[in-house]
């Protein structure tokens, strides 16, 4: 008799969690009180989730740029079109790879850290203590981390793209020997600000919202045990990654 109900729970839990997550978002936004305290907390968290993710984002961006250059030149060479390398790299990077890879890295680096931190606060009674001190933990703990992630993601995406272009330049011009004038000229004329660049910016904002919301939601609702914190961390990376790819498709289909 338990099997049908377990199956029902398994099937409905994504919908239930989506609803709970939505309500959590509304609760965060309804209680928002702009002020110095929120600003300070958000800046502190911005440093932890943003600045501390910078190194991994820059390293990955640089090597993604080099790989893109290598693959593009390899493919375009057979048509004698290696001059178009910067155009191919620029469009694929600004529209897709920049925001998507940054979001996946951000979910792995900062999202899991946020979920584990909040989950541990739950497990050690810090959230209970806050409630008993008449301090709303959603406003004090979840909101600054959410806002910090939301702000950090577009900035990190910009940094990822910049380092990826740098990697492409070093490989394509420095190693392969493409003409710098043609490289930059094609990039400047082929990659548009309003379409290519802004498409990536909007995606990064949405991904930032998704990853940050998922991380604070699972962290805040973690069971107060070691296993509960582990589950919250795992759920954060799995759900974030799936949502990033689903929303990437949805947004791309709207933009094109």
């Amino acid at each position, binding site marked *: 008799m338990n099997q049908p109900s377990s199956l029902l729970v398994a099937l409905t839990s994504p919908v239930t969690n989506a609803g709970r997550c939505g309500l959590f978002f509304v609760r965060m936004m309804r209680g928002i009180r702009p002020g110095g305290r929120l600003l300070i907390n958000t800046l502190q968290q911005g440093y932890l989730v943003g600045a501390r993710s910078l190194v991994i984002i820059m390293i990955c961006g640089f090597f993604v740029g080099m790989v893109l250059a290598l693959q593009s030149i390899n493919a375009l060479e057979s048509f004698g079109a290696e001059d178009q390398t910067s155009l191919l790299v620029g469009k694929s990077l600004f529209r897709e790879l920049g925001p998507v890879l940054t979001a996946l890295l951000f979910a792995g680096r900062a999202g899991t850290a946020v979920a584990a931190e909040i989950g541990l606060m739950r497990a050690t*009674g*810090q959230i*209970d*203590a806050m*409630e*008993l*001190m*008449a*301090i709303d933990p959603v406003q004090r703990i979840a909101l600054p981390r959410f806002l910090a992630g939301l702000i950090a993601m577009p900035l990190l995406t910009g940094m990822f793209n910049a380092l990826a272009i740098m990697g492409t330049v070093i490989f394509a011009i420095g190693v392969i020997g493409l003409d710098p004038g043609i490289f930059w000229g094609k990039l400047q004329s082929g990659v548009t600000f309003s379409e290519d660049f802004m498409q990536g910016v909007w995606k990064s904002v949405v991904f930032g919202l998704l990853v940050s919301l998922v991380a604070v939601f699972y962290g805040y609702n973690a069971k107060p045990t070691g296993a509960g914190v582990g589950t919250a961390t795992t759920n954060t990376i799995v759900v974030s990654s799936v949502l990033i790819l689903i929303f990437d498709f949805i947004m791309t289909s709207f933009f094109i």
Partner: protein
Amino acid sequence: MPNNTVEIEDLVFSRGRRMVLDHVSLNIPQGSVVAIMGPSGVGKTTVLHLMSGHLMPDSGGVRLFGQDVTRLSHGAMYELRREVGVLLQNGALFTDLTVFENVATPLREHTQLPEALIRRQVMIKLSSVGLGGTEELMPSELSGGMARRVALARAVVLDPKLMLYDEPMTGLDPIAVSTVRRLIRETNDTLDMTSIIVTHNVSQMLQLVDFCYILVNGKIAGAGRPDQLLESDDPGVRQFMNGTVEGPIPFQYTGPENWSLAN
């Protein structure tokens, strides 16, 4: 008729199929230091969480300062909690903040005091628990006993009207126990507060509290001054106060279902 800070009437609370509190009623007079004592796992901490509105009962009423906490809105509950200080069993210090910031948090959140006054107030409270000079340490650098004293300083920093202590002496050395005991009494009397201490430690409470409730098997088994309880005829109260093995209070956990090694 005394003015009661806390009034609990016919309180029932269950966890799953296990009834933790079975029609419990008690009153805590304003200005008193009252202990709620009982063996481990009897639901003492649950009573504190019910008083602070952190848990909701199945039935019955909990009134703090005349307000029924079971009927308060979220906002009204938070307003009421500003008058209540709670020292949790594990201290629950914020691990990402220094000792100073931990104690300063309630002041920063609930007052508009300038930084200089916040610093002064925090230093006074830290000194009163014997931890002046620890303000820049992180909670991970403190011993268990020190962390509890910091948590105590944080709990009283807003000078609440009601203090709820959950096992305040556990993990403290004898000198710290005496200090904290004196601190609880002096703070209570000086600020005209009401203090409720949940503990299983009889000897530490005898010299401190005005009144005791003994909680056994989900019910109030005894109530009175410590000296009266020591002379109690109730077998459960006598067993608990004297710490004897023989008596109606079982050592083994008794769950909702009969359990034995056989099954």
